[in-house]
């Protein structure tokens, strides 16, 4: 009974809490404090050490995150892919390599943060919290990948339905509560990170500059539509500034 209540809290109540805080928090922060919306890069203070941390970290994270996302969105496809052992093994080895990359990068970043006095000067509490949280999450992830094979298959089979049940507002925790505690911890960690996103520098991934790809290089902004208001007798109906 008690275990049930715990399960219900961590895998129903807590995920919803995390998602709601994430949604409201990020939108609020985006709308009201654009000035604080930044990746807070510290490359300007220390560049070489950053390279060895930030590159493996980000590329590892992108691949691993996309992997989770794909398995979550297309569980059937995932299982189909895994039906051939060789494909399964290629996938798992790749994912694991990138997971290790995250670990190495993050470790380098943490060492840099605490050994370089300049970087310490621009470190705040949330930076530290989120970095150690991510570190724990990555260690758990790699551990799971090694100890509970084959993750890509059981994620698609058991985790995806659970996550979808959360999205569909009809949470089914049976599969989840049967999971080993280490996987449970990984899931709780994931929701904790989602919850903390609006309070940390992690928000910067939400404003990844994708529109840059199709934007024209030069940007000119007009404060008002100069042609429309040039002549005083013309009726003036345009309120929106025009950009080009």
């Amino acid at each position, binding site marked *: 009974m008690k275990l049930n209540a715990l399960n219900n809290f961590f895998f129903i109540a807590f995920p919803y809490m995390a998602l709601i805080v994430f949604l409201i928090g990020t939108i609020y922060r985006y709308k009201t404090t654009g000035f604080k919306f*930044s990746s807070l*890069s510290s490359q300007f203070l220390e560049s070489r050490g950053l*390279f060895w941390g930030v590159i493996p970290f980000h590329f590892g994270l992108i691949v691993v995150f996309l992997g989770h996302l794909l398995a979550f969105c297309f569980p059937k496809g995932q299982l189909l892919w895994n039906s051939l052992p060789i494909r399964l093994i290629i996938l798992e080895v790749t994912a694991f390599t990138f997971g290790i990359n995250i670990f190495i990068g993050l470790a380098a970043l943490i060492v840099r943060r605490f050994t370089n006095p300049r970087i310490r000067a621009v470190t705040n509490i949330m930076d530290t919290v989120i970095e150690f949280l991510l570190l724990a999450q990555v260690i758990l992830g790699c551990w799971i990948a090694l100890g509970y094979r084959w993750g890509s298959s059981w994620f698609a089979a058991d985790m995806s339905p659970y996550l979808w049940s959360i999205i569909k507002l009809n949470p089914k925790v049976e599969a989840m509560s049967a999971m080993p505690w280490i996987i449970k911890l990984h899931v709780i960690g994931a929701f904790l990170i989602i919850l903390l996103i609006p309070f940390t520098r992690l928000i910067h991934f939400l404003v990844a500059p994708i529109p*840059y*790809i199709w934007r024209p290089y030069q940007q000119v902004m007009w404060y008002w539509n100069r042609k*429309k208001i040039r002549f005083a007798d013309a009726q003036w109906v345009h309120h929106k500034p025009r950009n080009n």
Partner: protein
Amino acid sequence: MDIRAQTSMVFYLDKCIGCHTCSIACKNIWTDRKGAEYMWWNNVETKPGTGYPTKWEDQEIYKGGWEKKGERIQLKGAGKRKGLVNIFHNPNMPVIDDYYEPFTYRYLDLIESPSMDDQPTARPVSLITGKPIDIKMGPNWDDDLSGTPDFARNDPNLKGLSAAEQEAMFHLEKMAFYYLPRICNHCLNPACVAACPSGAIYKRGEDGIVLINQDVCRAWRMCVTACPYKKSYYNWHTGKSEKCILCYPRIEAGFAPACMHSCVGRIRYLGVILYDASQIKSIASVDEKELVDRQLQMLLDPFDSQVIKEAQSNGIADSTIKAAQNSPTYKFAKAWGLALPLHPEFRTVPMLFYVPPLLPVMASLKEAKQTQQGQKLHDAAKFWDDNWLYDTSTKELWGTLDEARFPLKYLASLFSAGDEEQVKVRLKKLMAVRMYRRWKTVGDVTEEKSNEVLKDAGLTQAMAEGIYYLTTLAKFDDRFVVPASHREQALEMLEFTGDKKGATGFGFKEATAQRGL
């Protein structure tokens, strides 16, 4: 044609005394904050010298600006592909040590120190970490060629000069230098705007000022790399990039920017120039030799009736056209052909023009026997007591330019992408105006001679008079012709609520909710 107005600047280098008043005026208003201590939106450097940040002109290091690839141009170290691939770590970004680590002193130690045998000292501490540091570099530590081996001899512009020419430049008797004040050029083809992945940087349509929206900047840092003049700075505390805003709040209120207002040497001019924006792309991509000429071609004559008509139909206010007609910068850059853009080969089409310095090249210096000197000297020449002849004679008209102690090649590398002719034309004009004034005031130059010189340089007496006036006697309103910003229209646009009077009443911009059927 797509006529637009650009607020442009001219710096008359001969008159800069290197006092840094401009830098201080700017710093006191805009950058005296944490994270911005190291920024000098306006800085003055000694040339030859390495500048700020160190060797900023060397794009092999910093990869700033545009480069020509075939018929097109692309950003050298940024852009869509390079920018997004390098977004996590930008390999070409300068770090704070390329500028200098900001510092202060522990002044309190001087007061609170217990009595002891030695005098107490105020140790320097870093403004970043608060810890004691050994200061390696500070603002303008290269001033007046100080530490020449470290600074002057590492000037990237010396690359094109032979070893002998370089040696000659630093020969003690020949040594000359001048100051180069720099602010953001508010370019027509700004590399900073093009490089910003967030789209936070933009050029204002009405006056061409380039600004960074602090709410949209996300610290991707690409503008710092892309600006070849290194005039976009990363604020390490706020995590936002910042740059010179040409004091737009002052400009909108009709004042000159603070650096210009405070300039002791009165070297600075500000005014509107009308230009044809449809040409920007093609001009930025022409061959290096044509860059200067084509850029000047794009600037339009504000008195031409066709230009005026086109400008009006493109929405440019009459007051702005009027300002363009009085613009001192148009005169310097186009009408008189005296000014040149700084490093046009970076292809950002900068809108800050420099009148190249005549004084460092004016005199020639030769070794001459004392006895010979007396015989061959022109009356105007001065000579030292030793065997060096510092010759400012004007007998052979342009002789001194060719054997100038300061190689024209060096100036050309700064102001005309290496084309010495462009610099020479301008220096001749400066010299001609001096001779013209000499005829007028001193009288040791005849009128024929003065006319001959003016003609040779491509000036008329009226032009010479205009140049003389604007470079010597000009008052505030002559030097800074700030166009009206027409805030009243902008305010009206924001506030106009008359159309809601009959529904929600004055003061509302939003309509009422839709009700009923």
